[in-house]
């Protein structure tokens, strides 16, 4: 019981990070019908900016726990958002209206550029930091087994839920959200009705990148070691999560992330550690056979 509880905590905090990245995939897909393959690397950029900000703060001697973490988070979100905006400007906007595969290829190009840029400018070695929020609370105790719920894990879960709530409000309650939904339904019609679609798409990328920055900062705080290649694996997992949950659906992305995190964790907990990815991907395949649009995806209506 205690053991399952501990694994549940592990799985949820891992799944939340996947979910945060998956939201970025799903948003961009929702609005332009295209997978942003550079998103995993934007996440990696977010983690690196958080690292650099943190080191600068430490150098300046301005280190006091929560305030520093908040500052790191904000700086990383702002700068990563700029990267997201540039990615859209460089890789997507010039190709809008060209054939369907072109932006896909240019996004892969951006992904390679970002990886190599960080590799060259920051070096190829893994970059470690110490644990900023050590400790946690003891949830329950079963003989010698203590269920540990660390402060970082709590922060990740709280922050993800908070960010998602704010974001859902943005999409459902604000003029920008309305414009985004309009673009998603019919971009040409939206522009005829006076919506600046280019600006709306740009803002979607900016928001997606800011969410990736939150995920990157959390990743850095949780695991303490990053390198230029982390975007690949995390990106693949988050993409899987987005597809599992139903690509284009926001709650679906978080649900998918949670499921992937939980499947991986519980498979490692009770079966074999090395085959957890096989388990996660098998469940994805099974889901897609029976629910081709994912768990919460809407049936695509073919427009004539």
């Amino acid at each position, binding site marked *: 019981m205690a*053991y399952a509880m*501990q*694994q549940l905590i*592990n*799985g949820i*905090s*891992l799944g939340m990070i996947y979910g945060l990245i998956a939201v970025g995939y799903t948003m961009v897909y929702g609005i332009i019908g295209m997978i942003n393959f550079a998103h995993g690397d934007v996440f990696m950029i977010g983690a690196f900016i958080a690292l650099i900000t943190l080191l600068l703060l430490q150098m300046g001697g301005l280190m006091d726990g929560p305030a520093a973490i908040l500052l790191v988070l904000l700086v990383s979100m702002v700068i990563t958002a700029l990267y997201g905006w540039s990615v859209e400007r460089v890789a997507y906007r010039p190709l809008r209206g060209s054939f369907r595969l072109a932006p896909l290829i240019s996004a892969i190009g951006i992904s390679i550029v970002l990886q190599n840029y960080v*590799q060259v400018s920051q*070096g*190829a*070695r*893994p970059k*470690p930091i*110490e*644990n900023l929020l*050590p400790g*946690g609370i003891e949830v329950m105790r079963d003989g*010698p*087994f*203590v269920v*540990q719920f*660390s402060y970082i894990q709590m922060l990740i879960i709280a922050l993800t839920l908070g960010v998602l709530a704010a974001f859902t409000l943005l999409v459902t309650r604000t003029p920008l959200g309305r414009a985004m939904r309009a673009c998603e339904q019919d971009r040409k019609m939206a522009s005829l009705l006076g919506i600046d679609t280019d600006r709306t798409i740009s803002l979607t990328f900016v928001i997606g990148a800011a969410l990736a920055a939150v995920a990157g900062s959390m*990743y850095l705080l*949780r*695991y*303490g*070691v990053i*390198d230029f*290649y*982390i975007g690949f*694996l995390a990106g693949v997992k988050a993409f899987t999560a987005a597809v599992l949950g139903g690509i284009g659906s926001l709650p679906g992305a978080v649900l998918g992330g949670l499921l992937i995190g939980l499947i*991986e*964790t*519980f498979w*490692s*907990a009770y079966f*074999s*550690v*090395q085959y*957890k*990815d096989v388990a996660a991907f098998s469940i994805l395949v099974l889901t897609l056979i029976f629910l081709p649009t994912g768990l919460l995806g809407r049936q695509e209506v073919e427009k004539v």
Partner: protein
Amino acid sequence: MLNRRTLLQSGLALPAVIGAGDAFAQGTGPIRIACAGPLTGSNAAAGDQMKVGATQAVADLNAAGGLLGRQVALELGDDACDPRQAVSVANQLAGRRVVFVAGHYCSGSSIPASKVYAEEGVLQMSPASTNPRFTDEGGWNTFRVCGRDDQQGLVAGKYIADNFKGKKVAILHDNQAYGKGLAEETKKSMNAGGLQEVLFTAYNPGERDYSALVSRMKGAGVDVMYIGGYYTEAGLILRQSKEQGMNVTMIGGDSLVTKDFWQITGAAGEGALMTFSSDPRNRPTAARVVQAFKAKNIDPEGYVLYTYAAVEIWAAAAKKLNAVDPRRIAAELKASGPWQSVLGPISFDRKGDVTVPDYVFYVWKNGNYTELKS
């Protein structure tokens, strides 16, 4: 079609053969040798050690007038510890007419690369690849200046069986040639010493979240974990174990010999143990070279001196024969010896392994590792 292609191939092969003959002959250009290892990727710290060692060795050779009256040029190959990339790097280096390679680092890279080198007539001496298969299955061209995992695992397993009697031991590995081989040898020797492990499992290298694995060990009440794997993952697993409140002693292999390990673990690394050869930096034969490194503000830790020694020993054999023909040098290395090097005198057996390997335990304390006094 077939005919034309074979013709074309033989046409392409011809200049290569002539080229190879040319390289071994008493030419006038520099003698090309290479250092290949993970210059990027998660083992880049080790690759850097190798690069530093090889660069210094070649600089010292050239400062002393070169080899056979010619300068020695060093090529660098980056395999990122990826077996596929290692094969293409090996082909590239062979294409540049390299006669000797000090490398690679990961056993999983060294083994496939050695097949390419054997075909292309290149001598390979690894400073770090400890998997037995490297020389067991190797051809005429494989040598190493480090020990073997069956020797390293023997020492580690015996130590665990002797010192942790009655404790719960988990053995983990990364399913790669080095890690898995080492874990299996350790298990064998530990079991022979009368101690059974409670968990023997593989983890996926390259990931960051090992919390599920850690909780599993916590559930099994593990007191000691042996990790056959590289420093990044070993460091992360140890760090996450301490974060989950486990009181566990970690034991690892020679891949942890880098300060980067401590960077990852931080204070969680206190008391971690590892096996490695007795520190070459303290040997009298290394004093002069260590001085030279210290002057450049480099700590010749880990594999720096091993790579230096590989180049040094190759050069000594070439000098003795007054030729750089890899096959003749290979035969000479096995036939003669001991060869003087920064590591001390080294002799090779007929497989290309060093005849007197020594493994001792080191313990991490406060960011530094020191030999464990038993």
